[in-house]
């Protein structure tokens, strides 16, 4: 018999540090598979964020830099400018990218920086124990919105893919979800397009992945998938938001 599904080469052997059922792990696997399939492992440089995925430098078997909270796009810019032939990707959470790192992501996108951003939207700050993120849903209870997110005081959840798609720099922007196998397949194809866009030198690319945080949502992993589907997708419609000519 032949292995038709196996651990991608671009993952190290180190077990993920994520909580049971956390879909960060799925996102990791997809990114690694795409790197394998595009044959770019030896020229890829990744950037770990500050967030639950801070340790992803231990998981991706490529050169990695750990960036300050929110600054991964700036770090990626520094790297890409030095090694324009390398493939540079950042992996960032929603606190990291949509909150503290807003300026950096907007400007990397606007510059059309030739990097790929994997954006994990789990509607919460996982790492620090479940505080409200800019992506937290209206009414959602978190440790810093104990009475539920009050849109009057904190506004509505921010839609990063939509916002960045108004800029000229991005070549490819899509939102996908990790809540079931079909969607995981679609997520992978979006990730692949994003990396391919970089390989082809087309511009900035970003894939927003709806992801779960069973620990801080206070649900089982299985319940979390359902919650994601029922609550996040209506607010964060899936699909491709920007696809410039040449993206394949």
């Amino acid at each position, binding site marked *: 018999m032949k292995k038709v599904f196996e651990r991608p080469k671009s993952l190290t052997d180190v077990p993920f540090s994520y909580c049971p059922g956390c879909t960060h792990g799925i996102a990791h696997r997809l990114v690694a598979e795409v790197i394998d399939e595009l044959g770019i492992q030896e020229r890829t440089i990744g950037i770990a964020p500050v967030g639950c995925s801070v*340790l992803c430098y231990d998981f991706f078997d490529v050169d990695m830099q750990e*960036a300050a909270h929110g600054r991964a796009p700036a770090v990626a810019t520094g790297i890409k*400018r030095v090694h324009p032939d390398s493939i540079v990707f950042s992996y960032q959470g929603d606190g990291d990218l949509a909150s503290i790192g807003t300026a950096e992501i907007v400007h990397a996108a606007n510059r059309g920086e030739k990097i790929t951003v994997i954006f994990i939207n789990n509607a919460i700050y996982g790492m620090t124990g479940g505080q409200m993120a800019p992506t937290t849903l209206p009414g959602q209870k978190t440790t810093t919105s104990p009475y539920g997110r009050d849109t009057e005081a904190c506004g509505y959840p921010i839609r990063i893919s939509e916002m960045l798609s108004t800029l000229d720099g991005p070549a490819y922007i899509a939102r996908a979800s990790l809540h079931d196998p079909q969607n995981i397949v679609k997520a992978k194809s979006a990730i692949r397009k994003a990396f391919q866009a970089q390989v082809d030198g087309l511009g900035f690319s970003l894939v927003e992945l709806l992801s779960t945080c069973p620990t801080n949502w206070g649900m089982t992993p299985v319940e979390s998938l359902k919650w994601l589907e029922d609550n996040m997708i209506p607010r964060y419609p899936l699909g491709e938001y920007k696809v410039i000519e040449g993206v394949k």
Partner: protein
Amino acid sequence: MGEKILMKGAEALGEAAIKAGCRFFFGYPITPQNEVPEYMSKRLPKEGGVFLQAESEVAAINMVYGAAGAGARVMTSSSSPGISLKMEGISYIAGAKLPCVIVNIVRGGPGLGGIQPAQSDYFQATKGGGHGDYRMIVLAPSSVQEMVDLMGDAFDLADLYRMPTMILGDGMLGQMMEPVEFKERKPIALPPKDWATTGKKGRGKQNIINSLFLIAEECEEHNFELKKRYNEIEKNEVKFESYNMEDADVAIIAYGTTARIVKTAIKRAESKGMKVGLIRPITLWPFPEKVIAAAAEKVKAFLTVEMSTGQMVEDVRLAVNGQKPVYFYGRTGGMVPSPEEMVAEVEKILG
């Protein structure tokens, strides 16, 4: 080479960086150092390098982090408020053991302050304005020529010790023109950057640039390793200028622009019959504490002159360690002490 050309300090700084092999500059405008990025934006593309105006100082320093981690000689430049914004990034660079050069053309503070020359960022530069136990090598030129000469050192030291090096100037040094010569530097042996993230390129093992150590024991060990390096630097890399110290009764300690003015003051004091010398720290960290301690055995008193309300004076006191009185004279917020004021201070001390 060898020929003298007339150049503005800020531009000379840029040219010296390019001559030192710097090909990447990430910065954000702020007075009074705009001529540095402006110069780089003109020159770097011609040298096959990259000038990029970042969206902010925070982004700039993190671009520097990325580029340094990728193995490049890279520089950023700013002035006081902008440098404050870089504090987290600088701490990360120090923590991740990355070499880079950071220029601070200091202006009056705190807050928005003013744009005239000052030296009130001494503490921030030398004690670590960012969090954690870290140090930067801090070089304080006092002429355009020295700015040029130290730039080569700055990159070499950064690479040698894998740490950020700061050039601390002030608006006056940045804005003034003086003749400079770009001397041929003899290259020093530098360790290969085999830790840089270049893509694995068949290397087999990953390179990781990182400052996270979740296990306290490891974090401490990392800190102790840094500390060891810092001790080494304190032993090997102190630079200073001694001027007129042979039979001085009063030793003035001053750096940068202030030290130039001290020299003028010393001549005037001499003409009034006072014996005054100058010890000018060129490295603010490591601080030339031994030479000051040694001087304490000979002089009657020290006078520290700064364009601040008193920062380096603490390091002077630490060096003198109670052996002799240490006086302080400071102007701040963009005011520059005049030779006359300095002479008057010396008179007070000796009188």
